[in-house]
C-alpha cells in the first residue's frame, strides 16, 4: 500500500481506534457468528493486531469522518460501479472489433487531493475506469496511460476529462 506515498510522512498520531474497528469488523465478517466466545477472542486479537500495526497505518488519517461519511462513501461506490461497467463495455467493443480503434499514449494530469489516502483512491478509480491506467504519482501530478488519446489536449482539459468527477465524489469522505 505504501507505493503511493512519497514524502508526506508527517508527524501525526497513530490511528489506533480506527485500526481496531477495521480489524474487528474484518473478524466479524470472517467468522460470521455472534457467539460470545468468538466475540471475546475477536476483541483480544484485534487489540493485539492493532497495537502492532497502527503505527504503520498513518495513511488512514486521510479519512474525513463526519456526519455524512457513510452516505458519501455509498454515493462514490455507486458512481464507481457505474463507471466500471461502462468501461468494460467500452473495452469489450474495442477487443471484439477487427481493427482495434486504439491510439494509446501517456498524458499527465493534475490532482487536488490532499492526503495520501485520497490519492490512492483516485489512482485506483482511474485504473478501473474507461481506458485509463495510473502509471506514476508525483506530488500533485499523475502520469496516466490513456488507451484512446484525443488530439490536441492540454493538461487542464485532460484533468477535466479524467478525474474531476471522481474528485467531487471523493471529497465527501476523504481529505
Amino acid at each position: 500500500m505504501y507505493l503511493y506515498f512519497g514524502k508526506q510522512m508527517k508527524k501525526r498520531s497513530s490511528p489506533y481506534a480506527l485500526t481496531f474497528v477495521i480489524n474487528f469488523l474484518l473478524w466479524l465478517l470472517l467468522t460470521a457468528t455472534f457467539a460470545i466466545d468468538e466475540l471475546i477472542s475477536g476483541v483480544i486479537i484485534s487489540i493485539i493486531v492493532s497495537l502492532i500495526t497502527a503505527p504503520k497505518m498513518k495513511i488512514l488519517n486521510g479519512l474525513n469522518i463526519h456526519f455524512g461519511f457513510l452516505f458519501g462513501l455509498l454515493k462514490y461506490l455507486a458512481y464507481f460501479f457505474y463507471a466500471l461497467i461502462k468501461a468494460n463495455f467500452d473495452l469489450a467493443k474495442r477487443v471484439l472489433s477487427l481493427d482495434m480503434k486504439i491510439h494509446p499514449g501517456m498524458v499527465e494530469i493534475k490532482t487536488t487531493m490532499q492526503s495520501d489516502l485520497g490519492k490512492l483512491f483516485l489512482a485506483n478509480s482511474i485504473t478501473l475506469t474507461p481506458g485509463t491506467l495510473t502509471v506514476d504519482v508525483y506530488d500533485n501530478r499523475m502520469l496516466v496511460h490513456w488507451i484512446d488519446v484525443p488530439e490536441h489536449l492540454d493538461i487542464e482539459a485532460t484533468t477535466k476529462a479524467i478525474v474531476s468527477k471522481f474528485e467531487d465524489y471523493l471529497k465527501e469522505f476523504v481529505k
Partner: protein
Amino acid sequence: MQLAGEIILLIGAIFIFLGALGLLRMPDVYNRIQVGTKAVTLGVIGVIVGVALIHPLWWSKLFVILGFILLTSPVSSSAITKAFYRSGIKPWTKARKMKGKKKKAQKEENKETSS
C-alpha cells in the same frame, strides 16, 4: 434467485474471457495490462455476486474477497506498470489516420524498439 445468480455468473465468465482475448490481441504491454486488469476484475466481481445470489449464507466471506480484490488488483497492476515504465519500456503509439503499408511498417518499427 438461482437463475439470476447463474446468469450473472455467466456474464462474469464472459468478461473474463474477453479480458483474456484482449490480453492476446493488444499490441503492447501497457494495453495488455489495461485489458487484463479491468475486464478480469469485473469478471471476478460478476462471479462473486453470482455465487452470493446462489448461496446467500456465504455473503460475508464473499464480501471480504470482493473488497480485497477491488482494493488490490488496481494497486498491483499500477505497481508493475510503474516498474516497466521506469525500466524504459516505451509505450506503443500510433499516429491517427495512417493506412495500409505505412501503418504496418510503423508497427514493425515500434515492436522492435519496445522489445
